[in-house]
């Protein structure tokens, strides 16, 4: 475990007063959240609580109606995935956002291809892709040219994560990365998530699964009907308390 004393370290990402409505439906209400480097922050909440929406606001897909966002203490405005990436924010979306017909290398570099002149620099991209996969302790054979459609769920998840960390990213947000995975693959992905934080990245893990949350997270942020009802250290709460936060928005013996 590598989390540091919170008093010693300002959060990498800080959100304040975020509001977001879709038409008449207010999905996020005055949400505040902070995410620290070197830590896994679990973002929990029931279906429809607004977790994905919050993440998409941070990632520049949805404009927020109001609210402030700070990176390392200075205010930033993100209007597109590209701008988010420039700030070091990478999101692994719930549906992974991979192109099935492209191979692993092509997917990892999509939108940020290396070229020499007019021509795609395939050898360089292939080498960097391998390096990244190796650094994530992903054993690859001569298969980074395999189309993503031929990969298993866990492998696809791994490629999506590798794509996110290829870019000197500082904050990686994973939206329910283990939802569709079996036990063994879940363990692999969680190991990867933990490794990212141990390497100094700020990590946000969205999950429904209490076992996952307690296995890897340093902090837990709980959304209930679009409101942030608690941000606590994982060691300070029990499974039951977190479940209560998710289902009722409050927890006895735990001031939100």
């Amino acid at each position, binding site marked *: 475990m590598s989390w540091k004393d919170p008093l010693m370290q300002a959060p990498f990402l800080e959100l304040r007063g975020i509001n977001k409505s879709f038409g008449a439906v207010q999905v996020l209400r005055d949400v505040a959240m902070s995410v620290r480097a070197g830590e896994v922050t679990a973002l929990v909440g029931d279906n429809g609580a607004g977790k994905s929406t919050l993440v998409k606001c941070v990632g520049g897909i949805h404009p927020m109606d109001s609210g402030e966002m700070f990176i390392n203490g200075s205010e930033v405005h993100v209007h597109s995935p590209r701008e988010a990436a420039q700030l070091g924010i990478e999101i692994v979306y719930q549906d992974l956002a991979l192109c099935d017909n492209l191979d692993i290398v092509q997917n990892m570099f999509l939108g940020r291809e290396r070229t020499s002149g007019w021509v795609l620099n395939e050898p360089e991209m292939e080498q960097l892709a391998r390096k990244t996969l190796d650094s994530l302790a992903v054993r690859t054979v001569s298969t980074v040219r395999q189309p993503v*459609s031929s990969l298993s769920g866990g492998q696809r998840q791994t490629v999506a994560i590798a794509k996110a960390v290829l870019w000197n990213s500082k904050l990686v947000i994973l939206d329910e990365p283990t939802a569709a995975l079996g036990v063994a693959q879940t363990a692999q992905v969680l190991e990867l998530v933990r490794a990212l934080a141990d390497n100094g990245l700020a990590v946000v893990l969205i999950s429904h699964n209490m076992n996952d949350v307690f296995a890897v997270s340093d902090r837990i942020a709980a959304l209930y009907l679009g409101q942030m009802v608690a941000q606590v250290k994982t060691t300070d709460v029990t499974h039951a308390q977190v479940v209560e936060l998710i289902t009722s928005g409050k927890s006895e013996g735990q001031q939100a």
Partner: protein
Amino acid sequence: MTTISLKNRIPAKISGSLQQLFAFGSLIVILVFFSFASPYFFTTSNLVGILMAATVTGILALGTTFVIIAGGIDLSIGTGMILCGVMTGVFQTYWGWPVWAGVLGAVLFGGLIGFVNGFNISVLGIPPFIATLGMMLVASGLSLVISGTKPIYFKEHPEFQLLMNYSVIPGMRFPLGVLIFLILIVVAAVILAKTILGRYAYSIGSNEAATELSGVNVAKWKIIIYSMAGLFVGIAGVLAASRLSSAQPVGGMGLELEAIAAVVIGGTSLQGGKGSIVGTMIGALIVAVLTNGLRVTAVPQEWQSVVVGCVILVAVYMDILRRKRA
């Protein structure tokens, strides 16, 4: 530790090559069949005629390959090509531009048609089928209006016909137009396989939302892809006019289906995300050979349409089968 292992189904590349092999085999069979069916078929002059026909359809099909790989469709290429021919007639004969300027102007005009298609599709959000169907009618009408429904002849520029017909190799009938076609094939193949434009055509056709999330400006690249297809339309229109030494303002409808058929026969999926230039070229040859063969074996015009239509249906059905299997 996560392992990415070698296993699973046939990789897409091999299944694509199988389709090409099949298409190539079909081409040979059709060639042999018509050679026996008509003594005239396998003569130099007829084969050159086939190549010239394949040149026009094939150039249209080159641009269409990008459009279809990117998950779109362009129905305006047939009448658009006719309009570009009329425009080069206007530039050269009515406005007295030199040949090079008249040619360049018409090619760029084709690019403009493609740009408007791309704009309508990616900015206004009109579905590709409808947007280009509208453009098909617009182009068809404009050709007639601009030309006054009469062919435009290149009286001032008799050398214009050399662009398509000039014999590159002395003593042999190897037309310049076919050479231009060969060069364009290489250009298109390089763009598709080696450049960002090609990469985004595949990724947009494969998963448009994911491409956007990866930071690619999908709208911009779609406009570029349709514009480039338009440039190919312009080139095809100029060559078709050069071939006949005149810009014919009527027709063109149906050519888009021949080009689309060539693309699909060559293994490019109408669903997008998959395809190759090599495949399209085999497809273009099949369409040209078939159309020509039916004509020289004196199959009545009506039945020619029936056969080509059936081939298109079979090619599309095979595309559906391939997708189900994959």
